[in-house]
């Protein structure tokens, strides 16, 4: 089966409420007031008119400034944020590594958290049963695995979280700023592991600010700016473009702003 992601004309608009849930009193008052601007809603387009087709074999790096919509794009593909316009078509099993350690319950043991976290990533009990030993091995936490994770150090937690996320065999891998945690030895091991899943997954989308890493791992790069796709192309060319046209430009604009 070949994996494929098609995004047609998708736009995602966030509405930011000064007061996220207005409460009954305010909304009653508001419904009587004529001044609709009192609604204190700021709207902004997180993603504008995204058209994108990604086929098997693509290792797509995504670069852009903070707030360009990189993570939002990944979250939209996973289904967390449904677009208000357009459609997304995904063919293949997605493994998101967007936020590691989602749903970790500090009162539960490492082993129980492996199951819980795996369940949240959409895996079945059977799959987790098969993967459990491998995850424990990889995290090198075998002797602590039955202790509540509140006794783990932050490095250990990071190792556990990474291991759960990384011991998979995905069709589509979405990575958002995933840094290996732990000591130098574990970092090296994690980097190797990431390379491994990179080569076995059919599609990889990698969001990173580490441009060297992107150049190294990706065969296509997409430049996102203010919610729009600016360019897509060869990694080296795109990264040069990004540095020259966007980073440099923003930098100058900031300087100009600072001087006035």
């Amino acid at each position, binding site marked *: 089966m070949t994996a494929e992601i098609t995004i047609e004309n998708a736009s995602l608009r966030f509405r930011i409420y000064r007061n996220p849930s207005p409460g009954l009193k305010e909304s009653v008052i508001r419904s009587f007031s004529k001044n609709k601007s009192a609604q204190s809603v700021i709207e902004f387009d997180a993603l504008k008119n995204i058209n994108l087709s990604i086929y098997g074999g693509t290792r797509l790096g995504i670069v852009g400034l903070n707030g360009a919509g990189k993570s939002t794009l990944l979250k939209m593909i996973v289904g967390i944020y449904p677009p208000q316009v357009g459609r997304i078509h995904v063919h293949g099993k997605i493994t998101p590594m967007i936020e590691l350690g989602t749903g970790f319950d500090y009162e539960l043991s490492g082993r*129980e958290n492996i199951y819980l976290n795996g369940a949240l990533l959409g895996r079945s009990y059977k799959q987790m049963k098969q993967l459990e030993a491998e995850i424990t091995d990889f995290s090198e936490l075998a002797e602590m695995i039955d202790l509540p994770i509140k006794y783990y150090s932050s490095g250990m937690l990071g190792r556990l979280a990474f291991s759960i996320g990384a011991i998979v065999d995905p069709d589509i891998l979405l990575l958002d700023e995933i840094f290996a945690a732990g000591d130098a030895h574990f970092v090296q091991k994690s980097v190797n592991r990431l390379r491994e899943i990179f080569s076995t997954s059919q599609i990889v989308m990698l969001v990173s600010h580490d441009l060297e890493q992107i150049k190294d791992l990706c065969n296509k790069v997409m430049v996102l700016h203010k919610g729009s796709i*600016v360019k897509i192309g060869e990694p080296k060319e795109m990264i040069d473009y990004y540095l020259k046209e966007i980073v440099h430009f923003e930098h100058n604009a900031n300087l100009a702003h600072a001087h006035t």
Partner: protein
Amino acid sequence: MPQPETTIESKNIIPAVETSDKPVADVSFVSPFHDEISGNAVSIMALPHKENFFVYIWRTVNELRYVKFALASFVVNSLRRRYQRSVLGFAWSLLNPLLMMIVLTTVFSLIFKRDPKTYGIFIFTGMLPWTFISESIAAGCSSITSAENFMKKVYIPKIFFPLVTVSTEVINFSLGLVSMIALALLFGLQLHWTILLLPIAIAITFFFTFGLSLALAVGTVYFRDIAHFVRVILTCFFYLIPIVYPLSAVPEKYVGFFQANPFSHFINLYRQIIYYGNLPTGQEWLNPILLAIASLCLGFFILRQKEKDIIFRL
């Protein structure tokens, strides 16, 4: 002042890498889960074509099979957490209602001068279902809002968290019923064969409570006050439902009002089955069933209206 030569906004935006000329299969699924069984691709669409309400319910419920392990994990963990580190552990599920019953029986048999043995069971048959319904609804209200951190990090169907809450409570409730039956046997009270109907009664109550919790959970996303408001309302209902007193103690002219209360139909079901040992009449079955269906429809209706917007309002 160095003036930038070009502004990014004015640049032409190149729309796509490789524009797909393949037709995209028009699937009616709106779920982002990949269908592993049939290997079908799955689409997320901005606006699903107007689908029938019952098709919507079917699809939403069907989506749960992708998260059934997560559902089980959450329910088990929340039960486990409740009694974690206590010496008696799960025994508290059984002990809690027992102690509660002793307190209530002592107090009310002194006030109402009833035989404490049978009166205990009488209170219990009202108290247990009521605790289940009210706890589920109270906790259900904030089930979606308090799960913000999960919903923004992984994709979970919106009905997941209300379902976890009500499922956890229904298991607690069932354990409570077991402990009550054990007690009744211990006191040498006669039990009737009708308690075999309990699973059906539990199922009906479960669906009723779930529908209501779902509707309120979605509502709470928009009006956080609902969660507080509901607690007050539930306290009122506790006294409006014949739980600690029998319906016969209510003055004649108010009986109709008390019977119109939707919750009392459920309490009555348990009372008939356990306390009186009567087979509930057709009407006594029909009322709760209709209420359960209405509640489910309400829950799914509100969910359908707001499903795609909830995440933006958390």
